[in-house]
């Protein structure tokens, strides 16, 4: 039963992480200069591009009288062509992402959300439309969209491993997925294939904890997934290290391969590294494709 009071407290608890998340994402975004984002040719847009002599097909109201008054010919003010791009993103919110090996390191989820939202902020500032996959939040512009996105990103999933949703992708738009990609690879494969079918390009960012790369364990150990649903017991964890690392490398290879055949880009990021690097790569990867 939902009483107004409980609703209120739930909402506050939900909203609580938002400002810091936003602030952190904005903080990260400010570190990236937007650079040349215009189309570098005349078209519909808001900013001035050039003056050109008026052609007969130009309407009289489009003539820039101030410029024309300085010469005999009439001039028309061209605006720079600006086109809004739709970008959708998926940030894994499954339980596996909430792993952080050290108190000093952020959890993978925190890093993934920050990166996703920061990228969204940058894109919205660049005039693009940004949304989330799966019809939860269609691409739109503006600060309000960011607030909504932050709210949605703050939710957590209880399943062990997340799978991207390929729904809601506009044709020839762009997308990026942030996850640890440790779960079943089938859904990821499917999603990427569907995206490729629709001509959607983008980037895959794998966020891993340093411990997941190093596997510094030894002795008798029971490994559990974050929800505890999956368990694996070993008597000598140290012996598993090489085989685990082999499998991890295999998984990265697979993702790289997938990315290549679908025209996406793939990168691994560790929570121990600087977030800015990952953001720059992500932003560059999206920019690159245009």
């Amino acid at each position, binding site marked *: 039963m939902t009483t107004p009071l409980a609703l209120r407290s739930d909402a506050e608890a939900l909203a609580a992480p938002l400002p810091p998340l936003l602030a952190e994402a904005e903080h990260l975004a400010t570190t990236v200069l937007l650079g040349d984002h215009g189309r570098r040719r005349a078209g519909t847009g808001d900013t001035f591009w050039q003056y050109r002599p008026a052609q007969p097909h130009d309407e009289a109201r489009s003539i820039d009288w101030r410029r024309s008054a300085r010469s005999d010919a009439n001039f028309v003010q061209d605006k720079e062509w600006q086109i809004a791009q739709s970008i959708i993103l998926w940030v894994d919110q499954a339980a*596996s992402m909430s792993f952080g090996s050290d108190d000093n390191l952020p959890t993978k989820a925190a890093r993934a959300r920050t990166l996703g939202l920061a990228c969204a902020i940058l894109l919205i500032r660049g005039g693009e439309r940004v949304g989330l996959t799966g019809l939860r939040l269609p691409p739109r512009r503006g600060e309000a969209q960011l607030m909504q996105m932050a709210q949605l990103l703050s939710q957590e999933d209880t399943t062990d491993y997340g799978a991207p949703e390929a729904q809601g992708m506009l044709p020839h738009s762009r997308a990026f997925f942030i996850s640890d990609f440790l*779960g079943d690879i089938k859904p990821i494969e499917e999603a990427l294939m569907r995206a490729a079918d629709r001509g959607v390009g983008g980037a895959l960012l794998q966020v891993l904890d340093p411990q997941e790369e190093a596997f510094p364990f030894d*002795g*008798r*150990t029971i490994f559990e997934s974050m929800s505890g649903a999956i368990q694996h017991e070993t*008597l000598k964890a140290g*012996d598993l290290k090489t*085989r685990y690392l082999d499998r991890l490398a295999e998984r990265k290879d697979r993702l790289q391969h997938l990315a290549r055949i679908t025209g996406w880009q793939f990168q691994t990021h560790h929570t121990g590294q600087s977030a800015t690097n990952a953001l720059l790569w992500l932003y560059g990867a999206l920019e690159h494709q245009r």
Partner: protein
Amino acid sequence: MWSLGPIGFAAPWLLLGLIALPILWILLRAVPPAPIRRRFPGVALLLGLTDDENQTDRTPWWLLLLRILAVAAAIIGFAGPVLNPQNAREGTGDLVILLDGSWAGAPAWQARIDRVDTLLSEAALAQRRAAVVNLNDLPVGTLPFAAPTDWQNRMPSIQPRPWQPANIVDWFAQTDSDFETYWISDGLDWDGRTDLLALLESRGNVTVFQTPRQNIGLRPARFEDGEVIVSATRSPIGNPLETAVTAIGLDPAGVERQLASVPLSFAPGEPVAETEIILPPELRNRITRFEITGTRSAGAVSLTDDALKRREVALIAGRDDREGLELLSPLFYLREALEPTADIIDGTLDDILLANPDVIILADVANLAGSEAESVLEWVENGGMLLRFAGPRLAASDQGRNAVDPLLPVRLRSGGRSVGGAMSWGEPKTLAPFADDSPFFGLAIPDDVSVTSQVMAQPDPTLADRVIAQLTDGTPLVTRSITGEGQIVLVHVTANAEWSSLPLSGLFVQMLERLAVSTRPASPDATELAGTTWLPNKVLDAYGRLEDGTALPGVAGEMLAEGTPSPTLLPGLYAGGDRQLAINVIGEETVLNVAAWPARIAIEGMDVVRETALKGWLLTATVMLLLIDVIASLAIGGRLKGPRADVAAALALALLWAPDVQAQTTEDFALRATSEVVLAHVLTGDTEIDDIAAAGLQGLSQTLFRRTSIEPAAPIGVNIESDELAFFPFLYWPVTADQPLPSREAYGKLNRYLRSGGMIMFDTRDADTARFGSGSPEGQRLQAIARSLDIPGIERIPPDHVLTRTFYLLQDFPGRYASRDVWVEAAPIDAQTVEGMPFRNLNDGVTPVIIGGNDWARAWAVDGNGRRMFPVGRGMSGERQREIALRFGVNVIMHVLTGNYKSDQVHVPDLLDRLGQ
């Protein structure tokens, strides 16, 4: 209490728990280490991986052993093990504790007192009356029974005495009640011991406490063939033993020093060891006593008296042109008479005077060259003895004829006389009995001594006083005059047998002895001592310490003749007339016998074996083993890696942490000490005192750094046993009452340090409660420490000492206390005030010691933040006192580093100016 060897158990039944250990082994073996549960998202990648081998299913054996040991230690620990369990002595009725209390017990007196204390405590528990009796110091009345606790309070007054008990059975026989006896024996036999034992056994049970300790007695040194022979006897006789004998005497400045030290080794099975000391006569004559190094007992000290002294006698004859006529040589009889007991010097007068002999004998020398006569006279006035013999030359010369010759006691008539010869009338003259006031009084005159020729003295008002021996007709034979501190004696006959038969007789030798030309070869016998009274000069206590005996009553010569120390005849040095006689605890023939006890007497060791409860140690071991087990288990379970590794590492570190290792190598130490000026303090072993000394020197270093061009590095604590001292210009030595005495090597190092210009500042830190030289514990310790140090004569800092003006002008030397008792090396006696100068022209060099009790370190001390650590005085005056203390410190260091630079008179005008004079 059930005991197993030296270990007893308070709760032995608990040991049955050890039976359970094998069961525990099996149980523990079956249980593998618990797995760790880890959250790990990468588990999806692990699925399907299997372990290569099945291991760690069971606990490894060494871990099992560790745990079993831990449990075993816990079980044994709780069973209450006690090392050396003491079963309380049982007994009822009165208890008498006897202490031999002779010098032999002195070295380990404290152990005896501790033993008695323990026995008294047990007696107190058993509610018995007790009496403690020192057999050497019997109390008045009968056995003084009292409560044991009373006796415990009185124990400090029971001290050993430097003699052996004798004839005390009667005293014990006064008491006819029954009592039990504990007899603390010194291990030496003495007269009447068995009688006393028989008496005591008739009264009750007797238990003897005795340790088989090596007692060494040093016999009086004797003179043999130009060597000093020292011998020592020991008991019990057994293994080879190495020890050393030290000869101690005064140096020319009057300070007691070690003059020589020789090793003395007892062969196995030999009761006596002997060694010779070869010393130049100058040193040998200064020896006042011999000591066995490192033994504090009266038996290990042997005082020397005149018997060891050999006077230096210079012989000069006027006539040495008759080569080959040995028996006619004027010196032949003198040489024969003196050689056994004196050192004879030959040579020219100038050379001889340089050697400063005790006696110069001029045999028939008439004239001395002018300068020679003057220097001989000066030597006589400074205490020399000039003995002249007449002869043809003297008779023929004009010496002393018309005027008084300062080198002759009387004026002489020309020519002399001959009697009883072929060409003269009369019979040869014999000697008249010696007068009362003559030094020869009492010597028997042989009948056959006759005089045929002599030189005659001019009648004179003073002549009668100067005659000390005369012939039967009243003509003087020996005359003497006192000149200055010395004397001039003229024998009116020749030193050979030409003029008289005196040199042929024994009387000649005795007369020479009486004139103190030669020394008496042997100690005087009883007849000679009869009727004389001797005054104690120095007396020995049982610990072998010399004490002033001048306040004690005189002793009859008969007692001295016995030579056995007793309550009425303390061992020591006795003076009678111009002679000194030493009474030593150990005589020439003394033999030390082990006190043998009949088999029926129970003999226990002296050691008080302390009960040591081992429970704490075992439980600590349990905890340590468990800690190791924790770490080992973590290692096996893989918990030492991964996220908790840091915790485990910290734990392991805490476990393996060891007290800081003395990592500083000698080289590091040398570099640290020499790369900059470093003030150093001697480590006393008392952490608090050492810290304060370091803080004090830190404060002084800071002050020096701020105010002067001396910029010292951080002070260093110096261990005098192991560290090199030569690096430090200055050592601050806080004296604590319980400081161990430095070893022999350390003393050697310290003495080298003092001689090579180092300075040690001794601080007894007790000027608030004690005066200098008084018996505060620190003061006594300082005396003990300084006894073997090469410290010159000291005096209180005189107002013109260079320390008063090396940097600041000071007249007070306060530390935390403001006592004026601060002592430095004494100025030489010949330092003289120059007219118009405020300071004497003092000695060169730096005073090697400053001794005081003002606790300077506390006044100087600063903590890590540079704040003063201890208050000084009150208010502003206190701060002023601290400032003066710091200034004194600055002056001391300046004095150490610049020597007597400020003592130079060049600075006088400036100093006068600053003093406002």
